[in-house]
């Protein structure tokens, strides 16, 4: 199974990711999942979410999830992008692609990846409201004027 993970500060470029897809002649199903930041977080209206990752461990935990996927289903490839830093409402924070011979296993694997990620991958979020957004210094990308 091909595996590909990126944890990145840059916006998720759906078009580029779709363009980079390669599938074998045995593939019948491709699923994309986009997790998008919603305006409503619990009781509050927010303007963004500031994501933080413990990257080295996140990569290892995703790898273990991918290993579990490979053991359970005949998946050809999994690609995952998780954005970190400040992600505004309506923007995707997560992009997952699964390709497989049949849709049943593709849907199952994609949902499994999301469910497991939410249990074990060390990524955290901090909601940004209008009033809190003045206080965003620490989310600045290292070495850039973010």
């Amino acid at each position: 199974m091909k595996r590909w993970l990126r944890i990145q500060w840059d916006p998720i470029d759906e078009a580029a990711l779709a363009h980079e897809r390669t599938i074998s002649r045995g593939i019948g199903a491709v699923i994309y999942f986009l997790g998008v930041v919603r305006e409503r977080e619990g009781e509050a209206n927010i303007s963004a979410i500031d994501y933080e990752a413990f990257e080295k461990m996140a990569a290892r935990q995703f790898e273990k999830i991918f290993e579990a996927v490979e053991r359970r289903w005949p998946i050809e490839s999994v690609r995952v992008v998780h954005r970190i830093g400040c992600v505004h409402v309506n923007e995707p924070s997560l992009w997952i692609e699964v390709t497989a011979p049949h849709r049943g296993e593709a849907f199952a694997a994609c949902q499994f990846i999301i469910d497991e990620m939410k249990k074990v991958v060390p990524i955290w979020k901090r909601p940004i409201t209008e009033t809190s957004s003045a206080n965003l210094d620490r989310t600045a990308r290292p070495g850039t004027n973010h």
Partner: protein
Amino acid sequence: MKVLVTFHSYFRDLTGATQVLEDVPSGTTLGELVHSLQKRFPKLKSMERSTLMAVDVEYQTRDYQLHDGDEVSLFPPVQGG
């Protein structure tokens, strides 16, 4: 032996620290280390039931025996997605 402890997410706010370098006796368990940190950082104690523990890049339980140079991480429940 020396153990480097990193706090993630709002555990940084609770402790006021990103990292602390701890000197612990040989044979110390992860649980004992966390207990001593909770004494020093009382707000961490309030999160006792929601504290996840890792050594290097793997989750560990309280009975994990620490080694010299271990990199320990403490953090609240994860929220990816």
